[in-house]
């Protein structure tokens, strides 16, 4: 490893460990709430209401909603980790510690993205583990499960980072999750098959990234799908590259960070 690579590696590890320590230190605010919320979803929608709903494509309603709820936890946690942490650092001005240092912008980006991804995946694994207490979830295609979970966590961590960079107030980091992410999630086939929708809305749903994430994960676990998994995967991959380049551009230009 040459000197520059080694320096960048140390800088990356520093951000990563700082960020992971941060969310582990406040686990009652970062890890516990999504677990409680999702458990309530399992109990109410899975057990109480779900027991009165007919099986969908051979799976109980409880089994049907587990993949969507798992990915919902992955996405929202990856997003909120980077958005809140980055904006918090901006608010306290401690972000300047990184901006004045000699590490390249790409390392800041990678550090925050990977930390958000780790939190998203960690919460996702906990949720999946809890679901095993309620029902049996097969893992039909482990590679698909791992790759879509990883890719989605990275995409949402990047989206959170962009939100954190552009936000001017704490309100700004709650608008996107409330007014964009939540509707996309609830309309993304977590609780129903999109075949139940009017054909027009089905066509719209095919371009909803959350639907494609949930659908691909559902395919990886239950082996069922509402649309082309390859299209969905490529859409999310494209979104990843777009968000990666956008956040790198913002960091390099200092948009939202420098005067």
């Amino acid at each position, binding site marked *: 490893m040459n000197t520059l690579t080694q320096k960048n590696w140390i800088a990356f590890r520093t951000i990563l460990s*700082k960020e992971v320590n941060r969310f582990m230190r406040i686990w009652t605010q970062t890890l516990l709430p999504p677990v409680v919320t999702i458990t309530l979803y399992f109990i109410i929608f899975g057990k109480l209401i779900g027991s009165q709903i007919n099986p969908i494509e051979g799976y109980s309603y409880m089994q049907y909603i587990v993949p969507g709820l798992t990915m919902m936890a992955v996405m929202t946690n990856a997003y909120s980790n980077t958005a809140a942490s980055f904006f918090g650092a901006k608010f306290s001005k401690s972000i*300047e*510690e990184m*901006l*004045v240092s000699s590490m*390249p912008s790409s390392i800041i980006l990678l550090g925050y993205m990977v930390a958000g991804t780790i939190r998203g995946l960690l919460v996702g694994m906990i949720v999946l583990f809890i679901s095993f207490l309620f029902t049996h979830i097969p893992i039909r295609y482990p590679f698909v499960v791992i790759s879509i979970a990883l890719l989605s966590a990275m995409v949402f961590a990047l989206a959170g980072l962009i939100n954190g960079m552009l936000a001017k107030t704490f309100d700004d980091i709650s608008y996107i999750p409330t007014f964009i992410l939540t509707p996309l999630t609830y309309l993304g086939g977590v609780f129903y098959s999109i075949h139940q929708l009017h054909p027009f809305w089905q066509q719209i749903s095919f371009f909803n990234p959350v639907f494609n994430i949930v659908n691909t994960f559902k395919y990886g676990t239950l082996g069922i799908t509402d649309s082309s998994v390859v299209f969905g995967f490529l859409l999310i991959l494209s979104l990843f590259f777009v968000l990666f380049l956008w956040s790198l551009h913002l960091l390099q230009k*200092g948009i939202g960070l420098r005067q």
Partner: protein
Amino acid sequence: MQALLVKDLRKVYGNGLIALNNINLSVAEGDFFALLGRNGAGKSTTIGILCSLVNKTSGKVFVFGYDIDHELEAAKSCIGVVPQEMNFSQFEKVLAIIINQAGYYGIPKKVALPRAEYYLKKLGLWEYRHNTVLRLSGGMKRRLMIVRALMNEPKLLILDEPTAGVDIELRYHLWDFLTELNQKGTTIILTTHYLEEAEKLCKQVAIIDQGDIIQNTPMKLLINTLDVQTMILDLVKPLSSDIKMNYPYRIIDDTSIEIEINNRQTINELFHVLNEQHIQVSSMRNKTNRLEELFIRLTSKNGILS
């Protein structure tokens, strides 16, 4: 080599405010350089551009020969900065903050830990290393910012009002510490509102006013341009009558007078005149710091003080 070379640096903020108006500045390696100016003169904007917290509108900046437009990382690796405002995460521990700062520069822990210990001990913070920032006093936070800025052992240390709000004893301690750093070869750029501090520490001084550099000269030369000094003399006995002498003076009270001496006159001559009139002096001091007097004159010609 120049530690810093600034050419035609201009900054216009989004609201149209011209913070820097094509300034030129050069700081030699090893210098202890004062950058002075009133609030809003453009000091912090200049510093912000040097350490990439502010985007410049135009101009060139070279740090030890590295162009910040093309070799930003190399330039930043030479700089340590102590900002004017506290910029810590309040919930982090002292040691974690400085080890992380070293990490951002790619310095491994095994190198950073002994370095942190050295500087924390030097600035009296070692015993507080496990405290969160929230539990530190204002003076401790200032010292912590200095330690943090030194973790990459910068060749150029930029201090933006490092002793603001710091008690006098600690200020003296910091002065000694900074002098020692400078003697070991670190180039230092200091902005301060305590002009006594700048006069005591700095070899070179630049005064910035309304976005322009209005003075850039060795400190001694600048001080020598001061043509009149006002001295306050405390007398042993109360004055019995008016004094007869060719110096402009003002009686403050029975036992103290204020006398103006121009730079063609000597203190010896003054004492000779006082002796002739049997006036005994118990102590003597400058009414204001010499640099302060010059600073007010220079900046008042140019702006709101006039």
